[in-house]
């Protein structure tokens, strides 16, 4: 018996019935603390959900009081078709008295921890694939996928207890290198199947010293390893961050000493330089030097991976007193209204405006390729969103993923550039 991981303890606490212990792969029926939904763009799906619930005889949603609904993809609606789809979804929730965020509030994965809705030890259920982002506060945050209807009808869903891999990160970053470079490096080394179906825990002296903003970034990119969820054991930094934000009581769970991780991967970040994921996969990662100088048409800063205050701060530092290259669109989409407000207060937004950057309202922005920076065929972009899959941000375009600093430096240079010369 090798003991249990904190994630397993969290799951058991939320399970019906509660087993004494779990084995990876075993299904548990879970009642989450938070059930979040993103407003869809397709009216047909809302009609289907409506009729499914009627067929199942569900009148009031069992998790109504724990529901949070977000309007973050394609918000406000960029086309009549999407507007109609969103309207139908809003009507579905409005008729049930469930509150929704407005089109400028930002991305679900940022808002929930920011507002203290997702706290250490809680289980959050959300379909979106980047739900693991919120594991940075020590929550169980797996994308639920199949299970939506169960949550609407029963208030519970099924989760297979994950095997857990440990990613131990040591060392200190050099100048011009950031948390996002570390995330990209991990994606490159482990690949899109590096943690397929497992949970990943980020630990080690590098993580212990890391800000919450960058912990979210690391956890976010666990998704691109195929991970079910990401996790950081809460520490003083977590608790200081969470405490000012929530009135909810919460319980930090610890992993048993001697717990046998499924796999252990060691990383030393000290010698790492800026990283880039070249088209068309988030694990097609190279040292920046290999693609430096490639001319770009667009630079995008935002998304649930890198749309936080620290990300905008570094861009503002780079752009201060400089101008965006005249042939480049530099689009900055804050991840949440809180981020946008703080960045405004601190003068970052002013610096971006002065440099001719395009600052948008807070949402997913160009990341899902629905509006706010769709690429034309043949366009080349550098971006700190989550994915650079083929066609993701526009058909026949090329997307290079990089850190916010590299994105900002490239926006100035008009070609992929090393941020070191701009800091």
């Amino acid at each position: 018996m090798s003991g249990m991981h904190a994630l397993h303890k969290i799951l058991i606490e939320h399970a019906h019935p509660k087993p004494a212990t779990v084995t990876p792969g075993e299904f548990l029926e879970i009642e989450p603390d938070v059930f979040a939904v993103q407003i869809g763009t397709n009216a047909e799906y809302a009609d289907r959900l409506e009729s499914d619930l009627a067929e199942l005889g569900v009148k009031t949603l069992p998790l109504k009081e724990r529901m949070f609904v977000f309007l973050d993809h394609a918000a406000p609606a960029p086309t009549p078709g999407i507007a109609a789809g969103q309207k139908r979804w809003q009507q579905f929730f409005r008729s049930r008295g469930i509150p929704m965020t407005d089109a400028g509030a930002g991305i679900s994965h940022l808002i929930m921890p920011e507002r203290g809705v997702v706290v250490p030890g809680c289980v959050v259920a959300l379909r979106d694939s980047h739900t693991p982002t919120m594991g940075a506060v020590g929550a169980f945050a797996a994308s639920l996928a199949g299970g939506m209807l169960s949550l609407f009808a029963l208030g519970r869903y099924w989760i297979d207890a994950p095997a857990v891999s440990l990613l131990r990160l040591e060392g200190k970053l050099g100048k011009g290198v950031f948390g996002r470079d570390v995330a990209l490096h991990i994606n490159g080394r482990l690949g899109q199947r590096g943690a397929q179906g497992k949970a990943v825990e980020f630990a080690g002296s590098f993580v212990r010293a890391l800000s919450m903003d960058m912990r979210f970034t690391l956890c976010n990119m666990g998704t691109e390893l195929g991970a079910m969820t990401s996790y950081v054991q809460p520490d003083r930094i977590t608790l200081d961050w969470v405490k000012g934000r929530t009135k909810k009581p919460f319980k930090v769970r610890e992993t048993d000493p001697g717990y046998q991780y499924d796999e252990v991967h060691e990383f030393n970040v000290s010698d790492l330089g800026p990283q880039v994921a070249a088209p068309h996969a988030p694990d097609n990662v190279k040292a920046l030097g290999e693609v430096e100088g490639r001319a770009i048409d667009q630079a995008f800063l935002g998304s649930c991976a890198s749309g936080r205050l620290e990300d905008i701060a570094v861009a503002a530092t780079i752009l201060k007193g400089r101008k965006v290259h005249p042939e480049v669109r530099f689009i900055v989409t804050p991840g949440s209204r809180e981020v946008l407000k703080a960045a405004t207060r601190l003068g970052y937004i002013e610096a971006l405006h002065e440099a001719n950057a395009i600052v948008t309202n807070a949402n997913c922005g160009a990341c899902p390729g629905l509006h706010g920076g769709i690429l034309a065929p043949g366009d080349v972009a550098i971006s700190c969103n989550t994915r650079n899959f083929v066609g993701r941000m526009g058909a026949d375009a090329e997307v290079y993923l990089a850190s916010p600093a590299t994105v900002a430096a490239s926006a100035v240079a008009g070609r992929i550039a090393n941020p070191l010369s701009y800091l």
Partner: protein
Amino acid sequence: MKVTGTVWKFPQDDINTDQIRRSIYSHLPLKEQAKHCLETIDPEFPAKVSPGDILVGGKNFGCGSSRPAHLALMAMGIAAVVAESFGRLFFRNSISGGLLVTPCPGVVDFVNTGDRIEVDTAAGTVSNLTTGASMKCAPLPAFLREMVELGGEKPYLKARLARDAKAGAGA
């Protein structure tokens, strides 16, 4: 559960849900979405598929975003997907929606486009009716098999809620 059909093989690994059905089509009626499935890999594919056909994929089929790409495949008439392995979200979404999905390591070398195959989830076999060979794949976990046999999450919940009501009435 048994399904027999003609194979379309996409042997590439890591085919993501954005490739299965791009998000720019996500607001369209499913019938329209179905006309674009996997078009970034094979533009002719949507026109070639017949109802009842089976997709065979490589490793991590359906990785990436959790948007319901399986519904577009179902609207296209795809009866089952057998892959070396699946992205977790696509896999769960498919089981929930009643699309038969079976992980079967080795399947890419075992079948070719145009072969007739039979997938038997209870026995955990894929039989190639064209070559006459048969291979084992790991059976689904019991819980998922039950949901698959019943036809997905909704019929499962129907049975479950009826059972709960009965237990409640008896108590």
